[in-house]
């Protein structure tokens, strides 16, 4: 026997079996819908409530606030980093250290711990000239980084075991002044140099308008008084730029001293040889050799003296400028200009990019982990639901 003649009959019977909601339930649900499904706050944590509200919010309405929040976070982090960095305080008309070209590639403050021996009296201008010539001779050997910056090796050409360090120091200062004040400031420079037992090697002063009035000084200052002298000079006018450099010249001094001692020993030996010479020819040959050795010893002594003077006398180059300050960014003027703006903008953008990169480096793995966890949870939930169907 067949229960149903065809599918239509079966479908009609199925429709008759269709469950219908009870009136009470339907009425109650209607009311809840009309009220907008009021939340049951009891037992619901604030976090769960917040998550629920987030889930309810359309994604496109979340994207904009989220992007704005991320942008604000990057901006705040950039501001914090920019302010906390040393270059962050740079501002218009700064009296801080400027950017002088540095052939040694080093700027050092303060003075080294082991100072050279201070000279007992003010040296002469000739001594300064000798110092200059000696500078060229030992320049390559003394172009080392500041003392104490790099660890000294146990052996080698650094004279590690020297009883005290010989350090050559030099400084460059650029002062700004009104054109009318250049001469007065130049006089103050002379006063400051003399007050610190220094020497003005050469100077030139030119009058004129803004940009033309200027003064240049080459100074020698006793190394022990360099700090005081620089402080006095810096007080004369607006410091537009300043650079201090130092180089350890202990090794060449020790080396030259040893060579000089050898030379003296050879001279004494030759003198003894000369005294014991029996023939004229023998005597003449020793005298030739003795003359050459004495010249060698004199040259070594001169170089050693020059090095000692370089250690005892610091070279200071001072310039007084009038007119606007040349900016390192290529712009002109002491006021903040386009060049400074571009420089600052580039710096801020670089910091912002760095902050963003760091944030991405931290957040990307976390986001990937969260995504994988979400996918795994979703897959497990889906499988669990399908399993519930049997």
């Amino acid at each position, binding site marked *: 026997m067949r229960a149903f003649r065809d599918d239509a009959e079966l479908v009609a*019977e199925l429709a008759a*079996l269709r469950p219908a909601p009870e009136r009470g339930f339907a009425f109650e649900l209607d009311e809840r819908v009309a009220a907008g499904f009021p939340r049951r706050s009891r037992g619901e944590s604030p976090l769960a409530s917040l998550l629920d509200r987030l889930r309810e919010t359309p994604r496109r309405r979340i994207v904009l606030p989220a992007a704005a929040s991320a942008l604000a976070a990057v901006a705040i982090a950039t501001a914090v980093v920019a302010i906390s960095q040393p270059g962050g305080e740079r501002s218009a008309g700064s009296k801080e250290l400027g950017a002088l070209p540095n052939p040694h590639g080093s700027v050092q403050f303060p003075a080294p711990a082991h100072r050279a021996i201070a000279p007992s009296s003010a040296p002469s201008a000739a001594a300064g000239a000798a110092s200059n010539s000696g500078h060229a001779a030992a320049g390559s050997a003394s172009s080392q980084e500041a003392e104490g910056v790099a660890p000294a090796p146990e052996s080698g050409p650094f004279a590690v075991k020297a009883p005290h360090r010989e350090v050559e120091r030099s400084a460059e200062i650029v002062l700004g002044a009104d054109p009318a004040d250049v001469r007065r400031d130049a006089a103050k420079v002379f006063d400051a140099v003399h007050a610190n037992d220094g020497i003005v090697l050469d100077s030139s002063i030119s009058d004129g308008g803004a940009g033309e009035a200027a003064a240049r000084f080459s100074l020698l200052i006793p190394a022990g008084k360099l700090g005081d002298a620089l402080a006095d000079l810096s007080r004369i006018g607006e410091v537009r730029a300043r650079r201090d450099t130092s180089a350890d010249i202990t090794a060449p001094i020790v080396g030259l001293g040893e060579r000089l001692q050898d030379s003296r020993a050879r001279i004494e030996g030759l003198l003894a040889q000369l005294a014991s010479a029996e023939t004229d020819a023998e005597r003449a040959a020793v005298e030739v050799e003795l003359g050459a050795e004495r010249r060698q010893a004199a040259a070594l002594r001169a170089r050693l003296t020059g090095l000692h003077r370089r250690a005892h006398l610091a070279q200071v180059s001072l310039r007084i400028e009038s007119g606007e300050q040349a900016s390192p960014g290529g712009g002109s003027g002491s006021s903040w200009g386009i060049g400074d703006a571009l420089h600052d903008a580039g710096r801020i953008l670089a910091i912002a990019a760095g902050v963003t990169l760091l944030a991405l480096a931290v957040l990307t793995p976390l986001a990937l982990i969260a995504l994988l966890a979400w996918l795994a949870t979703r897959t497990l939930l889906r499988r669990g639901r399908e399993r519930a169907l049997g």
Partner: protein
Amino acid sequence: MDPAPGRSRGMSETLVAAAEEAPREVDLAFDRLYRSSRDDVYAYVAGLLRDRGAAEEVTATAFERAYRKRSRFDPRRGEPRAWLFGIARNAALDELRRRGRHAELTAEPADLGAIGVDDSTEASERRLALAGALASLPARERELIALRFFAGLSNSEIASVLGIGESNAGTRLHRVVTKLREACDEGL
């Protein structure tokens, strides 16, 4: 200072109040969806769970979830009814999982109230046989019957709810109906 003569007073307040009180389009759409689908969702859930109390609870949960997500519904991704029945299905399956037992185990006796007392004996027997055959179906197959004949979904809507192809849904449905007929024949 008095307002300019001839100017309506309180107009801005009136406009703002009206704008705030006016239902949004998304709320209107949800209201339409609810009115057109309330009984269908209940019929589907009750057909799947075979438990009136649970069906009421799950139906209410499904509509509440749908209400909370109404702003996120994207018409480009499917029909509103399919979206709603997807939510209802998840709620029903969650209920099954929560109970830790299958729908068969929770089955109530067939709703004899649905079988009219005025029907002929033969018709009553057929209906009882059909109810019995329906109860004997696995939940997965009974779900198809509930979606198609209790909730009145089309094959494409069923396919969308179950996440399968439309032809696949049609084929499965045909097999289940055939199986149901055979079960009814055996019952008689």
